[in-house]
């Protein structure tokens, strides 16, 4: 009879002990989640204040970041969007930390992978942001230079340069994100290489005379210099 009771109580006891062992982990997870949520909100608030004090919205408007957001149909203030992204990031970090407190091996592996991926994601986002600003700046500089030189296709040239730079930045960011890096590098090399090759061929074929003239002009200038030296 005792054995029979032992058969029933044994598993129940085991479940109870496991639950007793697991409960502090669950409480720790919940505590981390609640504190994390509050902390993330606080960080968001502080971040928002800092961005406002730095006049980030205005800077973003001038640098073209706001325009990029609008093209993606995001119509909140850039500072609010950034603060929300930071808030979301911290929320995910605290969620991961909370989950790791459960001490479950599968989750631990996932959390480990996530934290290893964070620096990559961060650098990819930085590449995207600064890359876009630099591309916009170079494109604008080319536009102004080409317009001032009276080049008819100034706008087209500026747009083409912006497109090429955007392609380069996207490839760099995707490579950082480790999203199909082999395919990205191959596709980028083929596309970029193809464009450069096409330009080289078209210049080579179409610009033979121009190149000859340039070289002849340079030679003439050199010869003139020599003459003056003799005198």
């Amino acid at each position, binding site marked *: 009879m005792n054995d029979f009771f032992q058969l029933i109580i044994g598993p129940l006891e085991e479940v109870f002990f496991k639950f007793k062992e697991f409960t502090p982990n669950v409480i720790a997870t919940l505590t981390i989640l609640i504190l994390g949520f509050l902390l993330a909100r606080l960080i968001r608030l502080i971040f928002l204040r800092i961005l406002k004090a730095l006049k980030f*919205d*205005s800077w973003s*408007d*001038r640098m*073209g970041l*706001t*325009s990029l957001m*609008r*093209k993606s*149909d995001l*119509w*909140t*203030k850039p500072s609010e969007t950034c603060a929300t992204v930071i808030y979301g990031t911290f929320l995910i970090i605290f969620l991961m930390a909370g989950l790791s407190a459960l001490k479950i091996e599968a989750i631990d592996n996932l959390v480990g992978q996530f934290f290893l991926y964070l620096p990559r994601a961060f650098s990819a986002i930085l590449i995207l942001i600064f890359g876009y600003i630099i591309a916009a700046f170079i494109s*604008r500089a080319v536009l102004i230079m080409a317009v001032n030189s009276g080049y008819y296709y100034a706008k087209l040239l500026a747009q083409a340069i912006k497109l090429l730079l955007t392609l380069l930045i996207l490839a760099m960011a995707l490579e950082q994100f480790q999203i199909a890096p082999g395919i990205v590098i191959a596709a980028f090399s083929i596309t970029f290489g193809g464009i450069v090759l096409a330009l080289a061929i078209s210049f080579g074929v179409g610009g033979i005379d121009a190149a000859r003239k340039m070289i002849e002009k340079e030679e003439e200038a050199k010869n003139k210099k020599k003459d003056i030296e003799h005198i």
Partner: protein
Amino acid sequence: MSDFYQSGIITTLHNLGKPSLERLETEIKEYSKIRPITLVLPALYSEFEGPAMPLIIEELAKVKFLEEIVLVLDKASAKEFQKARAMMALIPYPVKIIYNDGKRIGEIYNTVARNGLEVGQQGKGRSIWLAYGYVIAQNRSDVIILHDCDILSYNRILLARLCYPVVNPNLDFVFCKGYYSRVTDRMHGRVSRLLVTPLIRSIQALYGEHDFLKFLDSFRYPLAGEFCMITDMARVNRIPWDWGLEVGSLAEVYRNYSPRRICQVDIADTYEHKHQSLSADDPEKGLMKMTIDICKSIFRTLSAEGFVFTDGFFKALSVTYLRHAEDTIVKYEADAAINGLIFDRHEEAKAVEAFTNAISMAAKIFLENPLGTPLIPNWSRVTSAIPTILEMLKTAVDEDDK
């Protein structure tokens, strides 16, 4: 049929003989191939529910020379915006509706404001400023026509006559303002008849001749809301956001272009739209608000031209204006009598009294703050502060229109 007298320093294009609408439209259609035309319509949703807008849509549907219509819809809910879209869909060429009360356009205003540029209050001035921005962003038109959406006697000949002088490359006009007589069984247009013209002439009497005063006095109906201009003008002209819109816009035209390239055209035999109440006791409402804003606009523009206004000048101006306005009433009484029109002399005199008060109020406000100019910066200025603002505006309008 009107006379053919050329008055003032701008060109006046009269309605002589029987100009054929067909000929005008055919010519404009040809010219519009090299100078595409956009029509800008500042509208309130309430105008879609009244008799004016359905008539305007019906007439616009027959027009063949417009590249696009850009309608700025104000005071409308999301549902009303959709209704307005459905009504405008009857027009068989591209129509863009800018939803002024929408989230996206609101963010455009916020973007401009947070970069230290004044966008002013909601109203016709701000709406047309936004529409100009969209037309510039589209880069599809060389000519912009603008008219109100409360015209009860709308006919598409108005549109043709208004744009012909600017769209015709042989005429070399950059700005054309419409004029018409606002007569039913009586004369309307009190602010123009009894305030603007007598006020300008009073200032001339006190201060002497001045090119800007001559320029303003040249317009037969300076407060007409219908005009046509080259798109480049939309880049350089600032726009007042208050009731001084029409006078302020003329001041900007005067500032940026030679009067030789400005004209006015007779666009309608008669013109009927909604009438404003006088509200003589409330300077924040009706014609009184309008009058104060117009006077402020004139004083500020003249001040910018080098006029020195003192308290003594304004006292003398009130008296001189009253005399000029009273003389004007007598002239209009005679005009009404010969044409068999109803003429309420008492009402006209009451309006002049109210306008005299408005001039004093405007003078006081001006002396307190001569720099308080309610002008929205031109688009060149805005794009210098926010280079991508036009792209953002285009995205906002296109997304709202999806």
